[in-house]
């Protein structure tokens, strides 16, 4: 193997292996969060909470846990390994809300904590809400063809 080939080989490896590793951890941690959600839901149902409410309570619990872990600094450590595995589940949304709220508290309770809270997660709500309104227009006028 000459020098050029070796360089190519190294750069190929250097690019490839982190992506694969990142994807593997994203899969494991993201998957684990979703399995945990199912477990949590079963637990709530077992405690006598109706199915619909249990499902909502699962999301609220995940937001609570992710917020707490963000507060004590553990979320960042998990996210460093899990990458998209922690970002894509609703835990990522919670982290995106809580993290800037905490980090900008020093700037004041109104203009820091209050206004910076949605600096990352805000767009999710804006585009999600607009998209749902567009869907709403279609559903309202052509309801039957757009059954969920």
């Amino acid at each position: 193997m000459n020098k050029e080939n070796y360089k190519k080989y190294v750069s190929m490896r250097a690019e490839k292996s982190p992506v694969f590793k990142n994807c593997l951890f994203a899969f494991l941690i993201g998957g684990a969060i979703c399995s945990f959600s199912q477990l949590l839901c079963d637990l709530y149902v077992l405690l006598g909470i109706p199915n619909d409410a249990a499902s909502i309570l699962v999301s609220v619990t995940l937001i609570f846990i992710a917020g707490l872990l963000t507060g004590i600094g553990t979320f960042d450590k998990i996210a460093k390994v899990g990458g998209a595995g922690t970002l894509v589940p609703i835990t990522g949304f919670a982290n995106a809300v809580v993290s800037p709220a905490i980090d900008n508290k020093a700037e004041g309770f109104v203009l820091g904590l209050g206004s910076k809270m949605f600096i990352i997660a805000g767009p999710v709500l804006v585009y999600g809400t607009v998209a749902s309104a567009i869907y709403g227009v279609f559903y309202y006028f052509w309801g039957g063809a757009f059954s969920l």
Partner: protein
Amino acid sequence: MEILWKYAAPFIFGGFLCVIAQIFIDKTRLTPARILVSYVVTGVFLSAIGVFEPLIDIFGFGAKTPLLGFGYILAKGTREAIDNYGAMGIVTGGIGGAAFGIGAAIIFGYVFALLFKGKSK
């Protein structure tokens, strides 16, 4: 076997959705905020064309927990609000459906921000 699938199904599909996002992050330099936006909007779209509900039937929380599920909640809220209140639901439905998520994020976010100190910048 059935109980194994009950937990494996969300794991597989939820993990799969995270891998797609990870590939986008690593290969395209899309910022996480953009990825979250794409997932929610995609979730609304898939729900609108009727593809998402079957996925929930198969994969449960594997479909509901990732942000696609947040899109689904927005779309479902819109549909139900229109069924109940007519055209007004176009405006109120999405946020109404997602109220628990937004409420929880704001309230817990506020409390945790009071309790914990941020990183020094």
